[in-house]
């Protein structure tokens, strides 16, 4: 436990014992109000909502401080309170999705209205090319399916969620090095599955952002 963690735990212990309550909460508020505010801002809430949700989170901390078990990190408990506030707000708004804010139609770009009612069909690939592309896509999907479980998870989180190796490691409880190896192996297997259908032979192995 770091010195900072020990200091936070000491503050929480005092609060639970009813000692220096005002001063203790002032310190917690000073230390964590920015991360909590940003936690909500990253979920797409506007400024006023971020402030309300942050305040709701700290009130939840104040009211529930007695139930906090100090064998867990304080930030884990803070996360739970903040996440509950976040999801409660989503339920109240009737939106179950992240960043589901309505945008008025009037804010849409005006130039879209200027598009002609009829647009000519864009010239597509030739039939042979389309068949080849469909076959490549099928082979790739099968190759993704055949990947080992952990390897496929790393690939999906990297390609589909666009996460960095460090973030993938955090989510899957793997080291960044292990994630890097998994991603390299995954791409090599996909290339191998396509064989001569790929335009180039091998990946460079470093395309995943780190």
């Amino acid at each position, binding site marked *: 436990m770091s010195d900072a963690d020990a200091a936070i735990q000491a503050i929480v212990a005092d609060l639970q014992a009813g000692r220096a*309550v*005002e001063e203790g*909460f*002032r310190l917690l*508020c000073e*230390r964590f*109000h*920015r*991360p909590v*505010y*940003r*936690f909500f*801002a*990253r979920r797409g809430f506007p*400024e006023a909502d971020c*402030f309300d949700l*942050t*305040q709701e989170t*700290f*009130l939840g901390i*104040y009211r529930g401080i007695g139930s906090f078990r100090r064998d*867990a*990190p304080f*930030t*884990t408990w*803070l*996360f*739970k*309170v903040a*996440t*509950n506030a976040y*999801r409660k707000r989503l339920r109240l708004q009737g939106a179950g*999705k*992240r960043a589901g804010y309505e945008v008025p139609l009037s804010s849409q770009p005006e130039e879209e209205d200027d598009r002609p009612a009829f647009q000519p069909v864009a010239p597509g690939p030739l039939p042979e090319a389309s068949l080849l592309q469909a076959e*490549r*896509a099928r082979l*790739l*999907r099968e*190759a*993704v399916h055949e990947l080992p479980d952990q390897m496929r*998870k790393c690939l*999906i*989180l990297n*390609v*589909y*969620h666009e*996460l960095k190796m460090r*973030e993938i490691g*955090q*989510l*899957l*409880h793997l080291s960044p090095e292990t994630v890097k190896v998994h991603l390299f192996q995954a*791409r090599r297997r*996909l*290339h191998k599955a*396509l064989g001569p259908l790929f*335009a*180039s032979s091998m*990946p460079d192995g470093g*395309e995943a952002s780190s």
Partner: protein
Amino acid sequence: MSDQEPEIRQAVEEWTAETGGAGEGGGEHPDAETLAAYHTRELPPAAEQRIQDHLLLCRECAGLLLDLEELDDPDFGREIEVPAGTGEALWDGLRQEITRKEPAPPAAAVIPFPSRPRPAPPLWISSLVAALVVAVIGLSVWVASLRRTVGELSRPEVNSTVLDLVPRGIGQREGGEVPAAVVPSGSRMVTLILSPARRGDFQDYEAEIARAAGGAVWRERGLRPNDYGSFSLTLPRRALGTGEHRLRLFGIRNGAREVLGEYALRLAP
């Protein structure tokens, strides 16, 4: 990035869509407790696997978990600017909540002192107390009566009644029934002298007084004859009641009683 990266991306997206959803699915979101438990690796392997499968399809939960990883970092989300004064405004609101007090009761209000409720005693205790009270009263009356009796008996009596009783059968032989001896009503103590109708060598002697209608009212063993072979008894008058009584004198030998004399006794009311 290789030339095939867009194709790989498309394949992954298609595979993900086929197997689980379109990016926000993957079933119901795990609650905050479960996500925190996954973060601290407190879930069993099967539950951990389910969370990972969900994370592949759910950007929201993946984002929450990544934020949990960094929430402890003071620089977390530093690309987002927190408006100036946010901390002070938050603290003001929180301080109001902390220092909020309940309104005090009016000073002039007189609050009656509540009477302390007493639980009703069990029924058996009430019954026991009542029985004890009755017993104490009864004992007191009895003790008072005994004291009065002892006092009466201790008082010397002048010219107390002495009756020399003649056993039945003796008089008949002489030509008439022996009349009953009469104990006068005014006497407190009466001394009876019993002359046995016959004598013998007995181990013990016993006298018994019974009502004429039946029912012994007094009996005593251990009598001893005097030098003249007769027996004397001194009894309280009130112990015998009133009316006709029969007194019998027994000699006891080897456990068997033999009648030595029978006497008639009348106690005047």
